[in-house]
C-alpha cells in the first residue's frame, strides 16, 4: 500500500506509534498524511533507503486508512466496491485492486485481507468513508473505520521476516495472513509491499504500540524509514501515488482530471473481463487511454518534479514525482506522457528554458512488467485472426 500525497493539516493527529517514532527522529522533519503526523526523514535518506534495500527498516503505517468489513455479504460487497475478486479469497489470503467510480475512473487503491470467513480488513490510501456508507446500503455488512484504534507497523527489506521472528512475531507462514497472541498482545501479520521492497505489516491495538515497537528493536535497533526513502522505493517498484501521480476521481474537479486504470499504469488491477465490479461497465465503453503514467530513468542527480518530457522536439508529457535511486545511481521519475508517445529519444527539460536537460529512458518496474503482460494477454485473448505463417 502506498501513502497518498501529504495534506495541509496544520496540526496533524499523532498516530499510535508517534511517540516511539518521534523518539528516534534525528531530523524532526514531519508532514501530514490523511491528517496524521508522518515522518519525512528520521536520520538521512541514504541510511533509511540502504536499510530497507539491504536489511530491514520500520515504517509507521498509521496514516493509511483502515476499515473492517464484516457480515454475510461482505465478500460480494467488497467485490462490488473494488476490482479485487474478493469472493475468491480464502481465509488469510490478501489481494489488491482499485476502487473505481461508476464512470470507470480510479478513486483509490485498495488492499484486502480476508481475516476470517466473513471478516475483512480493507486498507486504502485516502479515506473513503462516504463511499463505503453509500455502497453498504442494502447489504448485510458492517463497516468500521479502525484507523484510530489500531497501530500498524511495516517491516520492509530482505530481512523483514527474520527481524519479526527475532521479536517473537513469527506467526507468518508463506504468503498468508496470520493472527495470534504474542506475549500477551493480540496482533495480525500480513505480507505487503512498499514499491520494490517486500515486507510485512503488523497490526495491533493502539494501546500496545510502544510494547511492540520496543520488542522489535530490542535485539537490534532497526532503523525507522520516512516518506522520502519510501517514495524512492515506491517509484522503483512502479507504484503511483494518489494525489501526486494521479488525482482520485472523488477529489477531481472534472472528469478530465481523473484517470482510468490503464492511464495510471495499473490495468492489470482492473481487468475488464473480470466478474462485475463498480465501474467495469463504463471501463468497457470508455475511450482508450489518452495518456499513460510511465517510470523514466533520467541521466541526472536531482529530482525535476514538474519538468516537461520531450521527444523529437515535441513536448509529450511531464514529470509527476521523482526521487534519486541510490541503487541505480540516477533519478527515477513518474511521468505522464501521451499514450501514443514514442518510447525512444526522450529527454527531460530540467529548466523551463530547456537549456539544461537530461536523457530519459523507459524504466521497467514490477508494475510495468505486470501491465505489459496483461495487455499482451488481453490482446491475445481477444484476437482471433491467425498470423500469416
Amino acid at each position: 500500500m502506498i501513502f497518498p500525497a501529504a495534506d495541509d493539516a496544520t496540526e496533524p493527529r499523532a498516530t499510535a506509534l508517534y511517540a516511539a517514532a518521534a523518539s528516534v527522529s534525528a531530523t524532526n522533519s514531519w508532514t501530514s498524511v490523511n491528517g496524521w503526523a508522518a515522518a519525512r526523514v528520521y536520520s538521512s535518506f541514504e541510511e533509511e533507503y540502504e536499510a530497507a534495500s539491504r536489511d530491514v527498516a520500520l515504517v509507521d503505517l498509521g496514516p493509511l486508512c483502515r476499515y473492517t468489513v464484516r457480515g454475510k455479504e461482505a465478500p460480494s460487497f467488497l467485490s462490488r466496491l473494488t476490482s479485487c475478486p474478493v469472493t475468491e479469497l480464502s481465509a488469510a489470503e490478501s489481494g489488491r485492486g482499485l476502487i473505481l467510480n461508476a464512470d470507470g475512473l480510479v478513486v483509490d487503491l485498495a488492499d484486502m485481507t480476508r481475516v476470517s470467513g466473513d471478516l475483512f480488513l480493507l486498507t486504502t490510501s485516502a479515506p473513503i468513508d462516504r463511499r463505503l456508507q453509500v455502497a453498504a446500503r442494502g447489504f448485510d455488512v458492517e463497516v468500521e473505520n479502525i484507523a484510530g484504534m489500531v497501530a500498524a507497523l511495516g517491516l520492509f527489506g530482505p530481512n523483514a521476516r527474520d527481524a519479526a521472528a527475532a521479536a517473537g512475531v513469527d506467526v507468518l507462514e508463506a504468503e498468508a495472513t496470520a493472527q495470534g497472541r504474542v506475549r500477551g498482545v493480540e496482533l495480525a501479520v500480513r505480507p505487503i509491499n512498499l514499491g520494490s521492497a517486500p515486507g510485512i505489516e503488523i497490526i495491533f491495538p493502539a494501546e500496545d504500540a510502544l510494547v511492540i515497537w520496543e520488542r522489535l528493536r530490542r535485539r537490534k535497533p532497526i532503523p525507522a524509514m520516512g516518506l522520502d526513502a519510501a517514495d524512492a522505493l515506491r517509484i522503483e517498484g512502479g507504484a503511483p501515488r494518489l494525489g501526486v501521480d494521479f488525482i482520485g476521481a472523488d477529489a477531481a474537479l472534472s472528469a478530465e482530471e481523473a484517470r482510468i486504470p490503464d492511464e495510471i499504469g495499473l490495468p492489470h488491477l482492473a481487468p475488464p473481463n473480470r466478474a462485475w465490479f463498480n465501474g467495469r461497465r463504463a471501463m468497457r465503453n470508455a475511450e482508450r487511454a489518452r495518456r499513460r503514467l510511465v517510470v523514466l530513468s533520467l541521466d541526472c542527480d536531482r529530482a525535476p518534479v514538474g519538468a516537461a518530457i520531450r521527444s523529437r522536439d515535441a513536448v509529450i508529457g511531464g514529470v509527476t514525482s521523482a526521487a534519486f535511486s541510490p541503487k541505480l545511481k540516477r533519478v527515477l521519475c513518474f511521468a505522464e506522457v501521451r499514450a501514443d508517445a514514442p518510447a525512444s529519444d526522450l529527454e527531460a527539460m530540467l529548466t523551463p528554458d530547456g537549456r539544461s536537460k537530461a536523457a530519459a529512458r523507459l524504466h521497467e518496474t514490477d508494475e510495468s512488467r505486470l501491465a505489459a503482460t496483461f495487455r499482451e494477454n488481453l490482446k491475445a485473448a481477444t484476437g482471433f485472426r491467425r498470423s500469416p505463417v
Partner: protein
Amino acid sequence: MSETMNVSKGARIEGGIDAVVIGATADAFAAAAMIARSGLHVVLIETGDRPREKREFSPGYFAVDGDPLAYALDQQVIDALDLYRHGLSFIARRLETFVRFGDGAAMTLPGDPALAGEAVAAFSEADATRFADFLEEERKTARALSGWFSGGAAPLIPALREIGAASFDGAVIGRFADQRLEDYLRAEASIGAAHRSSEAFTYLALLRRLAGETAGLQGGVAAIDGGGRGLASALRRAAQAAGVSIRQTDRVRTVIVEWDRVAGVSFDDGGQIRAPVIVSALSARETFIDFVGKARLDIEFARLLDFPAPTIATVRAHLALNGPIGDALVGARLDRRFLLAPSAATLESAWRAAASGKASNGVVELVFPSALDRTLAPEGCLTAAMLLHPVAFGDPADEVWREGIENVAREAIRRVAPEMSAEIVAIDLDAPERAAPPMFEALERRRRITDASGLEGYFFCGPEASIGGGVSLSAGRRAGERALRYFKEGGTNP
C-alpha cells in the same frame, strides 16, 4: 398472433422471443406495441398494478381508476398505434374550466386556451389582452420545450436557463391587474407538483402543462371515454393487434443478466423466458434493485434509486352525491372541469400543513364523471372525482389520515359549489400518489435512470421516467424506440 395465458408450466425455458415487457401500465402497453409493430416477437408480462374495471364504491355509485382527464397524450403513440381505431375516444375534447377563487368569485375559461382573452375580459377587462398575450407567448415557449418534456434532448433556446431557474412567483407576479389570474395560473402549475411556487425551477411545471397536447389541442384538457381504464383498453387492443403476447403473472423473480447484457426473465417456478431485450414499466426500485440486485449495479447508480420518502402527495377522492348539485353556477353545466384556485397565502399554508403531515385546503380539480357517463351513478344522482393537492403522504388504512382528507374533500366541494343542495353519501379515496419532483430534478433523474444502468438491452419506462403528473405515454414510446434501435443495431445500447 396474440394470446392471453397464465405462466404455469413448471420450469420451462422459452426461447425465440425478441423482447419482454414487464408491467401493466399504459406505458408498458405502448412500449410493447411500438416494438411489436416492427415485426418483433414481444411478450408482455402483465404484473404490478393493473387498471381495474369500474368499481362500486357505494351502492349504485361507481368509480373508475386513473385520471379521467388527459392533458398530454403523446400524439406519436396515438398515430403509430392507431389508437382511435382500437377504441380510444374522448367524451369531451375541449373541456371548459370553471375556476372558483378563494374569495368566491368565479371565471369560466373556454376549452381552447387561444380564446381565453375573451373569457378573461368578462372577469377583468383590463387584463383581457394581457392574459391572452401572456398565454400565447408561454404556449409558444412550451411548444418549443415539448420534445424535451417528452424525453428528447434539451432544445437550444438561449433563454432556457432563465426559464428553468425561474420560480412561478418570480415569473408571473405583477403581470396582471387582477391578482386572481395569478392564483389561477398558480393552481395550474401547482397541482401534482411537490414544490412551492416560490421555489426555483417551478415555472417549468406551468410550461409543461401548457406544452401538453391532447386531441390536437395544445394546452387543452380532454376527458377520455372510460378514463384511465379506457385508455388502457385501447392500448391493450393495439398491442394485441401488433402481435404482442400478453401473459398475466406476478411471479417474475429476476431479470437474467449474463455478463453485462440482459438475457431474459426468470419466474418463481424456475421457468425462464429468454430474450435479448427487456423493457420494464415498474418502479425504478423494482426494475433495478428487486429484479437485478444491488450487487450488480454501480454504486452511484444504485444511490440514485434511494429516493427520499415522499411527504407531499396528491390524492383522488370519489364522492357519491345523492341528488343534483343545486348550485346555479356550477350545476348549469357539469360536463366541465372545475378548479378551486386558492390565494397564494392559502396555498402556501396548505403546503406547509401537508409537509407537516396535516390536511388542509389547497388546489382542487373536480370533474363529475357521471355527467359524462350516466352509468356511473343512480338516476338523478352524481359522482364527483376530485383531485386534492397538496396533501400529506399517508396510508389510506390510517383512519386519522383518511378522516382528515375526507373532511378536506367535503369542504372543497362546498367551496366549489357553495349552494350545493345534494348530500355526500360516500367518499372513496384512491391511494395517494407521490407529487412530482421539481422539473429539472425530474428531468435529470429520468436521464440518469434511463441511460445509466449500464445493463445492455434493459430499458426503463416506469413512473420515474415520466415528467410531471398525468398520463402521457411518452416514456413508453421512448423506451420502445430505444429498444427497437438496440435490437436493430445488433445489441448496442443507443
